[in-house]
């Protein structure tokens, strides 16, 4: 039986972006269904009744929810190429630790940055964000990617958020290059990979989107 893979998606969701990159890296053919978040499809509501959120990976009719759970599933089922996780259990645990760190710490800063934190609150968010990104820089070290020579779990977990932070960079909210100099080149290296550039919007495309949204709100 041929594999049927469907992704319930939303193009700018950082969590959905993780899965699109993973599916591209593994060369998995799938049907992408873009969801309207204020008009969720019956398929989404049926596939993720608990959270009613994207992304949802549906493999031969069976849904898998939660992006990191889905990444593990993808790696286990399509284990013939592009491993997302190291094979050594200790290194796997380290990758999971840092992916978990991104989910616990970085995602909450992303939310606060976009929710319009102002003044002193914004300064605290920025400082905390940079402290966390610097720790991640330490973990990256001199490797081209967190996964070593190729993209791994931590790259996929962090890249969509880092892409969004680059947008703030362009707006002049802060300078990633000044605060975390290893992050912008790492983002650039990731986007040089076809699996990334063809799967997710680049920081420039995200920036254009935000500008358009802001202009349309002002009209």
């Amino acid at each position, binding site marked *: 039986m041929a594999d049927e893979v469907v992704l319930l998606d939303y193009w700018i969701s950082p969590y959905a972006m993780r899965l699109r990159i993973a599916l591209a890296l593994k060369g998995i053919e799938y049907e992408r269904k873009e969801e309207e978040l204020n008009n969720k499809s019956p398929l989404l509501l049926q596939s993720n009744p*608990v959270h009613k959120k994207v992304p949802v990976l549906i493999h031969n009719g069976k849904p898998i*929810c939660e992006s990191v759970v889905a990444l593990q599933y993808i790696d286990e089922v399509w284990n013939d190429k592009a491993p997302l996780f190291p094979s050594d259990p200790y290194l796997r645990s380290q990758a999971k630790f840092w992916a978990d760190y991104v989910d616990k710490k970085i995602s909450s800063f992303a939310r606060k940055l976009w929710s319009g934190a102002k003044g002193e609150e914004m300064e605290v968010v920025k400082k905390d964000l940079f402290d966390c990104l610097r720790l991640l820089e330490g973990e990256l070290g001199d490797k081209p990617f967190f996964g070593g020579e190729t993209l791994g779990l931590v790259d996929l977990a962090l890249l969509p958020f880092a892409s969004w932070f680059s947008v703030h960079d362009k707006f002049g909210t802060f300078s990633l290059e000044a605060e975390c100099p290893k992050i912008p080149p790492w983002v650039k290296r990731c986007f040089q990979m076809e699996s990334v550039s063809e799967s997710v919007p680049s920081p420039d495309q995200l920036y254009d989107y935000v500008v358009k949204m802001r202009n349309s709100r002002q009209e």
Partner: protein
Amino acid sequence: MEEVKLLGFWPSPFVYRVIWALKLKDVQFDYIEEDLSNKSELLLRYNPVLKKVPVLIHGGKAIAESLVILEYIEETWPQNPLLPKDPHEKALARFWIQFGLEKMRPIHQAYFPAIGEEREKAAKQYQEVLKIVEDQCLGDQRFFGGETIGMVDIVYGMLAYWFECMEEAVGVKVIEPSILPRLHAWVNNFKQVSVIKDNLPHHGKLLAYYKTLREKLVSARSTLPTPSNHDAS
């Protein structure tokens, strides 16, 4: 065999998750009690990022965060598996583990230091979330893992013993048999499993610990409190 050490803190349900997993797989380990008000050099060296327990040290390498540790244990000692073999079933187990982490934590943070009428409101919210777990994860099974306990049972283990002490400290019960009958039954079944029964902190000491902790949180209430200071996983 390489040496296994576990850095722990006696009241922590997160630490017990690791103890249970190691015992279920018959893995010998040394337990080292941490004084979290005076963190040891060992803890700061092996978990410099988060400085929390539990930390598992295997052959000199440290793994932190209880959920990450559980997966490491499962992969390193495959006997008596705690996760299903089928990838989709495994994904479901991991989904419910994530659910417990994401959905329950903010509700718990509202419940534990709640005072007066807030307590009933917080208890009701807790019950709504636990109803989802009861209906969609536990169902009619004896355990979350089916006939025997698995990783999901271990992760939800806090509800089976620690939570009773917290309920007593707060003064408003959540896991009422009339509202959550199957979860209530699970609590009793889980506590009877021999590895669990033989590895639980002292009830009286735990109750005193949570009463003291709750008093501190209630009196310090100006910012969002956390229910425990020992681990966030």
